[in-house]
C-alpha cells in the first residue's frame, strides 16, 4: 500500500561499503560460482512479484546445507551486513527487495525432500523444495500437500510468509500445516523447532513464531509438513450469479451451514471477463462467479454438492457447471490461478498489485460491496478474486506506471481496502504478508502488540541483519 521510499525508516544495519565488499570477497572465495555478483543475477533477486520497486543485493549466494547457511549468516552478523532469504521470488509485498543491499541467500538449491513418513502423514523438506515438486514426489503414496497459493512457491517461502491459498477453508494455512522447522538464527546457530510429535506442551511455540516472520527472525532451512490422504472423490463446480452480493451471501450461508468445501473462490464480473479472455474459458458469462471444489468420499462429495446447489439457487445462482474429470478441474483452477496475469493482460502496459484483505465471514458482504463501490469512484480497473470461504479476497489494482497520479490513486485504494478490513475486525493481510508495503497498516491493526513484535525482533536479531526494513517497523 505504500511505496518503500515513503517509509523513510533509517536502516539500523551498516551499509559500510568496506564491510560489504569484505563479505562479498569472502563468499566468492568460499562459494566460488555459487556466489554471484553479475548484474543480471542481482537484478533477478532484487524483487518479487507485485509492485516492481526493486532494490539490488550486492551478492547472491546459493547454499546447499544448513551449515553453509549458518556460516553465511554468521559472517553477515559479524560484519553487520544484511542477509535476505530468497526462494523463487513469488512474494507480493516486496519481501525480498534488498532495501539496504547486502547478501541475498537464494535457497532454491536446497531442494531435497528429506523424508516422507506415510504412516505419520508428514514429511520433511529443504526450504527450496517447491510446492509442485513436493506433490509430484508424493504421487503414488496416496498423500498430498494441499496448501496452494497459486504460484509454484518454495515451501520455505510459503512458511516464511504464512501463505495459504484456495483451499485454506478446508486445510488451513501454513500456520496449521507446519509441524516443525530448522532455522538459522541471526547469531549463526542452527535451531530445530517443533518435531515429529503431533503435539507438544513444552516451551513457547517457536515454530509458529518463525512461520510468517518473513525471514526477519531467522532463515528457515528445513520444514516438517503435515500431509493429507488424497480424497477418494473430488469434484469441482462453477456457479454464476446475477449479482455479486448473491454470490457472497451464498458463500456466507455455506460456511454457516458448515459444509466442508475444499475450495470456494469468488471472481467478480471484471475478473471473470479477464479470465474468459486470457484462459479461453468457453461457455461462461461475464458475471460474478463461484468456483467450488468438494473433497471426500463419493457419498460425502455428492451430499456436499447437493446442499451447496440448494444454497446457491436460493441466492440466485444458476445450475452447477460440473468438472469431474481431473483435466477439466485442472483447466478450471489454472484459469483461477492465472487471474493475476489475466487481470494484467486486460490493460497491456499497466502494472498491477494485489491487495489482501481478510475479514470475519459475517462482514464479508459489507467489505466486498463497499470495496466494489470504492473501485468505481476511482475509475481504476481492479478485478476482485477471493478465497472467500475464509473471508479473504484480493483486488488486482491496475495502474499506468508512467502516470504518478494513477499510481498514487491505486495505492490510495489499496490503503483504504486494508483500513476497511481492519475496521471490520479483520486484517490487512490474509496471506501475502507485510513485507515493506504494509508496515503502516500493521501498526493500525495491532497497536500495542507491535511494540512486543519490535522487542522480539530485537531479541532475535539485535544487529538487524535479517531482512531489514520488513515486517515490523523498528
Amino acid at each position, binding site marked *: 500500500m505504500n511505496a518503500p521510499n515513503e517509509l523513510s525508516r533509517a536502516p539500523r544495519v551498516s551499509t559500510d561499503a568496506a564491510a560489504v565488499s569484505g563479505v562479498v570477497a569472502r563468499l566468492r572465495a568460499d562459494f566460488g560460482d555459487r556466489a554471484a555478483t553479475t548484474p543480471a543475477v542481482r537484478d533477478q533477486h532484487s524483487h518479487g512479484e507485485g509492485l516492481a520497486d526493486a532494490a539490488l543485493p550486492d551478492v547472491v549466494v546459493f547454499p546447499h546445507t544448513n551449515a553453509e547457511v549458518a556460516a553465511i549468516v554468521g559472517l553477515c552478523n559479524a560484519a553487520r551486513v544484511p542477509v535476505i532469504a530468497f526462494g523463487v521470488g513469488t512474494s507480493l509485498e516486496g519481501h525480498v527487495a534488498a532495501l539496504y543491499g547486502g547478501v541475498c541467500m537464494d535457497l532454491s538449491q536446497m531442494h531435497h525432500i528429506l523424508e516422507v513418513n506415510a504412516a505419520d502423514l508428514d514429511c520433511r523438506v529443504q526450504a527450496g523444495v517447491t510446492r509442485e515438486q513436493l506433490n509430484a514426489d508424493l504421487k503414488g503414496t496416496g498423500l498430498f500437500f494441499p496448501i496452494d497459493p497459486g504460484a509454484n512457491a518454495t515451501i520455505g517461502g510459503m512458511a516464511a510468509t504464512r501463505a495459504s491459498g484456495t483451499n485454506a477453508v478446508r486445510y488451513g494455512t501454513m500456520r496449521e500445516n507446519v509441524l516443525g522447522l530448522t532455522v538459522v538464527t541471526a547469531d549463526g546457530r542452527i535451531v530445530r523447532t517443533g518435531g515429529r*510429535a503431533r503435539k507438544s506442551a513444552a516451551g513457547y511455540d517457536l515454530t509458529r513464531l518463525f512461520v510468517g516472520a518473513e525471514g526477519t527472525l531467522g532463515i528457515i532451512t528445513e520444514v516438517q509438513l503435515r500431509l493429507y490422504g488424497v480424497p477418494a472423490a473430488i469434484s469441482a463446480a462453477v456457479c454464476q450469479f446475477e449479482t455479486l452480493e448473491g454470490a457472497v451471501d451464498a458463500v456466507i450461508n455455506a460456511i454457516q451451514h458448515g459444509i466442508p468445501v475444499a475450495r470456494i473462490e469468488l471472481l467478480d464480473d471484471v475478473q471473470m471477463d479477464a479470465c474468459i479472455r486470457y484462459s479461453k474459458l468457453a461457455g461462461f458469462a461475464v458475471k460474478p462467479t463461484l468456483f467450488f471444489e468438494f473433497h471426500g468420499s463419493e457419498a460425502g462429495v455428492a451430499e456436499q454438492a447437493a446442499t451447496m446447489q440448494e444454497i446457491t439457487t436460493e441466492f440466485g445462482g444458476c445450475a452447477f457447471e460440473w468438472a469431474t474429470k481431473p483435466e477439466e478441474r485442472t483447466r478450471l483452477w489454472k484459469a483461477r490461478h492465472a487471474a493475476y496475469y489475466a487481470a494484467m493482460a486486460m490493460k497491456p502496459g499497466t502494472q498491477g498489485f494485489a491487495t489482501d484483505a481478510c475479514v470475519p465471514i459475517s462482514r464479508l458482504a459489507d467489505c466486498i460491496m463497499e470495496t466494489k463501490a470504492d473501485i468505481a469512484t476511482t475509475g481504476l480497473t481492479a478485478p476482485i478474486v477471493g478465497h472467500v470461504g475464509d473471508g479473504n479476497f484480493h483486488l488486482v489494482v491496475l495502474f499506468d506506471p508512467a502516470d504518478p497520479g494513477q499510481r498514487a490513486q491505486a495505492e490510495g485504494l489499496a490503503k483504504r481496502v486494508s483500513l476497511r478490513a481492519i475496521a471490520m475486525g479483520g486484517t490487512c493481510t490474509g496471506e501475502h504478508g507485510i513485507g515493506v508495503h504494509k508496515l503502516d497498516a500493521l501498526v493500525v491493526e495491532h497497536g500495542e502488540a507491535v511494540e512486543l513484535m519490535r522487542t522480539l525482533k530485537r531479541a532475535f536479531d539485535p544487529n538487524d541483519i535479517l531482512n531489514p526494513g520488513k515486517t515490523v517497523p523498528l
Partner: protein
Amino acid sequence: MLDPAVHAKLATLLPPSALLTAAEDTKPYECDGLTIYRELPAAVVLPDTEAQVAAILATCHAARIPVVARGAGTSLSGGALPDRAGIVLSLAKFRKIIAVDPLTRTTIVQPGVRNLAISEAAAAHGLYYAPDPSSQIACTIGGNVAENAGGVHCLKYGLTVHNVRRVRGVLITGEIVEFGGEALDSAGYDLLALVNGSEGLLAVITEVTVKLTPKPLLAQVALAAFDDIERAGAAVGAIIGAGIIPAGLEMMDQPATRAVEQYVHANYPLDAAAVLLVESDGTPEEVAAEMAEIRRVLAEAGATEIRISKDEAQRLLFWSGRKAAFPAVGRITPDYYCMDGTIPRRALPHVLQRIGEMSAEFGLRCANVFHAGDGNLHPLILFDANKPGETERTEAFGAKILELCIEVGGTVTGEHGVGVEKLGGMCVQFAPGELSRFLGIKAAFDAAGLLNPGKGVPTLQRCAEMGKMHVHHGQLRHPELPRF
C-alpha cells in the same frame, strides 16, 4: 508476607473480600492438580474487571512482586503453584460469555468461563467448542489457552491453539494487548501462538475469542481388540496411513482395561492385550463410509474382535472406560505416577515394546492409556510409596520413559505443560540455542521475570532431574474429575 505499602495499594483497588492474606483464606490456593508441590502465596486477589487486573499488575510490577494467574486450578504440571513472595491472581470472577456469533461461528468469553460452559452456550446454534480436556467440566478457557490444552478430539479438531482466534491480555506492566484478531489470519508475528501454551509467563488473559465447530450429525465408535500390543500400535499407524483422521483414536493396554472394567462394567474384552477406540463423526453417509474403511483397516491390522456402537448410549459406554481410566487405576494400586510424553506415531510399537521391557527390568507394573492418534502417551507406573526404594525406582523408570520419548523424536509433555514439573525434561529436549530463544521471548514480554516465575523454561541449574506427577492414596486434587 506482603509488603504493607503494596497491601495498602491493593486495598484501594479491591474490596476486602477480594484481597485475601490470612493463611486460612489463602490455603485453598496453595496447589493445583499437581499436589506434591505446595506453597502459600503472600496474598490472593480476586478482581472482577480488566481495569483492576491492569492496576494490580502495574502495582506488582512497580514493587517487583511475582504474580501467578489462576483459573480453576486443574493444572497437572504446577502451572498455578503460588510463589511464596508473590500474589495469586484468580480469574474466577471472569465468568461472562460476552457474545455467541453463529454466523462467524465464534464466541467471545471471559477467561474464567469453563470449557464445557462454552459448548453449552453454543448448543442452541448446533455448535460446540471442540477441544475437550477430560477436566472440561471444571477447567477454564483462560487456563486452556495458557496450557494449550488438548483432549480426546484434538486429533481431528486441533489443540487450543487451533481453536482460538483472539486473546486479550494484560502485560505485567499493566498494558492491555490484543493478540490475533477476529479474521482467519492476522498480520505480523504470530503472538497469538506464543500466548497459547505460555503457561501464564507472558500475559494475564482477560478475554478470549474461540472458534466454534458445527456439531456432527452422527458419531460412532469402533472398539477393536488385539492380542498383541505392538500390533495394536501398528494398527494406529495403519489407520492414519490410510488417510483417515478419526474424531478420536485412543488406546488402552490390558492392565488398563482390566482396571476399568471392574469400575465401569463396559464389557471390554479382558483377554485382549490392547483395545483401540476409534471414533468417526460427520453426516450419516460420511460416517458409514469412514466406518467401513476403519473396520477394513482394523481387520487387516489383525484385530481379533471389532464392535461398532449401535447407538449413542453404546457409544458413551465404549468411551466410559477410557474416560474413567485414571480413577480406576487409582483403585488397584496404592500409588501411581502419570507420564505425559508424546512420540511420532510410527514409533508407537517400538516404544510400547520398550516400556514393556522396562516394566520387567524395574519390577514395576505399568498401565498404558493414551491418545494414540496423536502419539500422546500417558503411561501410569503403579507402585507403593510405603515400600522402601519403590518411589526411587518409579522415578527412574519414569525418567527412562521420557528419555525414550525424546530419543524417538518426541517431547516430554504432550498436553499437561512444563510448569514446575518438567523443567528437567526441557533441558534434555532442547539445546541451549532453543532455550535462549525461549528466554528472549520471556524477556520481551516480561523483562523483570515477574509473571509465574520459576515455571515453563528452566535455568541451567534446573536441568538435572525429570519430573512426574505423583498421586499418593488418591490425593489427586479434584479426584472426582475425569482426566486425560
